């Protein structure tokens, strides 16, 4: 059994244990899924406080649905991803605008070297910009694969496409990124 599949099975077991009163099971689910929910929300909302609210709300919905959870019908990770996406969409609608990647604040880098910080920040900015330029489906597949560490079958389930279509989207996204970054090797600290 692959890691993602084993994790999905374990998630369902943990959720069932939580539904029967085991609070320790909830702790494991929190540690496993909150960083993903928060990261996903932060990428879309570009606001830490809002991303925290979304992550908390998504997890709250998980606790509420726990007694009615039917294992095998959905994976906890993909269910949480969808809930987080919907919550983010609601907030963005309320805001009345979508946030572009180049508007997003740069991640905090606490390395001591200023030079390294600058190089890394430039690299990060360039990469964010290149990802933002990708078509939305390719971008979504790439983010799910590399930032949310989901397997291709999980991505296929979330995006409601076949695994082959996911592979194709990822391949095209990587080719697009490579093309965008080809001229920026020096800027990216690779020159």
């Amino acid at each position, binding site marked *: 059994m692959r890691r993602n599949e084993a994790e999905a099975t374990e998630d369902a077991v943990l959720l069932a244990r939580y539904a029967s009163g085991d*609070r320790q099971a909830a702790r494991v689910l929190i540690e496993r899924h909150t960083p993903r929910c928060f990261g996903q929300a932060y990428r879309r909302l570009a606001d830490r406080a809002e991303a925290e609210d979304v992550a908390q709300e998504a997890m709250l919905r998980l606790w509420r649905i726990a007694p009615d959870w039917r294992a095998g019908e959905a994976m906890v990770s993909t269910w949480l991803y969808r809930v987080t996406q919907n919550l983010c969409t609601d907030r963005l609608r309320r805001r009345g605008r979508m946030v572009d990647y180049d508007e997003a604040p740069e*991640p905090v880098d606490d390395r001591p070297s200023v030079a390294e910080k600058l190089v890394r920040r430039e690299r990060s900015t360039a990469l964010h910009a290149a990802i933002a330029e990708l078509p939305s489906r390719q971008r979504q597949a790439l983010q799910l694969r590399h930032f949310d560490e989901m397997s291709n079958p999980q991505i296929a389930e979330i995006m409601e496409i076949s695994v082959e279509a996911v592979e194709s989207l990822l391949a095209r996204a990587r080719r697009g990124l490579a093309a965008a970054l080809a001229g920026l090797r020096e800027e990216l600290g690779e020159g």
Partner: protein
Amino acid sequence: MTERDRSMDRHLDRLLAELAADAPQPDPALLARIAADADRLAPASPVAAPRAAPRAAPHRRRRDLRWVARSRLSEQVRVWGGWQGAAALGCCLLAGLWFGLAAPDTVRALGQVTDSRLFEYDFPLSGMGDALSGMSMDREI
């Protein structure tokens, strides 16, 4: 795939991994809030209750042994008629021990009076026979 493609692929993987590693992490306060939500919404814990029991078991067991000993004693005392009865019984027991081990002379004499031979042949009521015959009663009766 050419060597150049492979090199670009590795480069891309490294950059994406770097970007993923730089992703902001949730604050511990957020995790605490989510844990509090989970506790608040958790159903009554059938798992937690038996978990508490084994921790208390060793103490309870020792207490149980003492409790059992005490309850048996009080039950026995109740059979003897309460603490007063038990005290009287204890006194009798001690007296019996005392008589048995170091009886005083009077008690020893009493023992001789109750000797069966003395009772049979030297019964001190010999004058009583005449009195009984005077009442037309046979001595042998």
